[in-house]
């Protein structure tokens, strides 16, 4: 079913919306949740929570892109669940590894004051990403939005892992410069 029809079902408060969403996007959402949580049951629960959240927010929200809208919900729910479960321990996991890599963009003494700053940061990241060449932008997003392992990104883009690592390193460096330029750090 086309996304516009699924959204209509949400607006009509028709529970078929959940079924159609599940049919079309279950696997997409599951792949995002599994990357973050690395556990089948937790991933499935997050995907189910995604449908419930979508049901609660559409309407009033009207997604421009249903896949991105759902993916974003899944990502947020999965990260929250992951952080709740891993407050005390750290390990060799993509979410943590990606955090370590992102730490290169931020000096240790900096802090984000409030929600407003968080929104500013989102807007800045959005602008920053749009200025990047498409390939560089999407390698960055596969790593830090979708939490793909380096090996998967290399395969997906048809490059060696070292090239992907180098691309990510350069993008992080550019991001650091951008944050500095905008006086966010």
């Amino acid at each position, binding site marked *: 079913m*086309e996304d516009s*029809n699924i959204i*209509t079902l949400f607006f009509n408060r*028709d529970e*078929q919306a959940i*079924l*159609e969403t599940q*049919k079309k996007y*279950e*696997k*997409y959402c*599951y*792949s995002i949740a*599994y990357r973050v949580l*690395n556990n*089948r049951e937790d991933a499935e629960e997050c995907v189910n929570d995604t449908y419930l959240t979508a049901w609660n927010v559409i309407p009033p929200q009207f997604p*421009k*892109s249903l*896949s*991105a809208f759902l993916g*974003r919900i899944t*990502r*947020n729910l999965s*990260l929250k669940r992951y*952080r709740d479960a891993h407050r005390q321990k750290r390990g060799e996991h*993509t*979410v943590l590894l990606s*955090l*370590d890599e*992102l730490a290169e*963009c*931020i000096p240790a003494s*900096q*802090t*984000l004051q409030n929600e407003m700053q*968080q*929104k500013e*940061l*989102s807007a*800045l*990241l*959005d602008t920053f*990403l*749009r200025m990047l060449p*498409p*390939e560089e*932008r*999407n390698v960055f*997003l*596969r790593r*830090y*939005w*979708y939490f793909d*392992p380096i090996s998967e*990104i290399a395969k*997906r*883009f*048809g490059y060696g892992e070292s090239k992907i690592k180098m691309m990510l390193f350069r993008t992080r460096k550019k*991001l650091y410069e951008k944050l500095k330029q905008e006086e966010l*750090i």
Partner: protein
Amino acid sequence: MMKPEDIQNALGDIGEDLIEEAANFGNVTKKRVLSKWKWIPAIAAILAVAIAVGMFLSPGEKTFLISAAQYPSASPYPHLQYKWGSEEYKQAALAWKEERVEKKRLFESISLDLDSFLQSTVQELLSNTNGKNTAYSPLNIYLALCMTAEITDGKSREEILDLLGVADIESMREQVNALWRSHYSNDGIYTLTLANSLWLNENVKFRKETIKQLTESYFASAFQGEMGNEEYTQALRNWLNEQTNGLLNNDVDSIHLDPDTILALVSTIYFQAKWVNKFYEKNNETFYTANGEVSCIFMKRNHHDYYYCGENFSAVKCEFDQINSGMWLILPDEGVAMESVLCDEDFHRFLKDPTAQSSIYEVDLSLPMFDFACKTDLSESLKNLGIESVFTEKADFSPLAKNTEGISLNKIEHNVRIAIDEEGCTATAYTVEYYEGMAPIDEKVTLKFDRPFFFLVTSQHNTPLFAGVVNDPTAS
């Protein structure tokens, strides 16, 4: 203090277009070879011909349609016709949705057991293929046999009902009608159309009530004409080509209504659907047939799909753009013959409800494109499955006409053509890798269908529509 988590969180709120772009980038944009959605057409036609022996036939009149079946209506998919949000769109969407709800309700009222029929027939019809591609449509054969039960009585009918798993003809009649209406779909996105017809000899006085029953309950249009007349035969060919969109025209052209034919009973199914997740790449590789190697083109994709790892085989479901409907692809393990899988208990358990027994895995799938037609005379297979009486002079066709002594079912031909829209071949042997538990991120399966495999196409209600074995994807 600004933490890396802040960037991670802030990234969550970037534009949806960027998220969507990254979801598809790489796999599609960089490696994309195919230019459009690929479709699966699949059709089957069955022709059962009853021939008179020793009956007196007098000259007759010209061919014409005597009763036309009223096919179920199918509301068009609203998005194809109207602007989203318009009043027409809303009305069309409501009609489309109500139709789906009604079909679901109808199907839930049916107790016909097509799964058991599939299990009874799969081994008989798909074993011993001698290296040839073979396929059949369980639904098509089932419906044709239901009609055959309607024109028979006594032992002839009992044997058919036994194979169909039905207690009595009255309940079957209602249920077949519901089965028909719950599956019939032609909304522009997903096509599953069924059609039946009767071709009657004009010199025989058929029982009107039986013909009426077949028209009303089984959607069979009835024609009557002079058997042996080329015009009458051509009318049958035209009807078949129309119902099968001309995809079986080579076989259709060889059909003849011989002068001593009493009745030809014809049933068709036409199916067309597109994949939910498209294949994004194709490569020349090698397929290992029983007799050697062939070069063909493989289509590839990587998605989270339903996957089942059996004792002797692996299975993956490629879903169509219609909830539940899909094509199950079943690959025997290396060194395991297709015949032993077809009689494997685990395989039959799996066939009962494939989706319920499977889990979602990330599957790296390589699948050869195929497009083949096959023609099977079902007579021997049906005899092996317990339907014998109708093929003998003792057959009871009493519901058909007053004097039916000597009438028997002479032949029952089943033609199928099935195609998936990309080509494929493979250079290396397939490997199956899967990871369990929590440790690895890559809970992934790699499946390369580079050796003979089995397929099963199921409807939106999980009804078995087509089953077959691909031994050589390059053979047509």
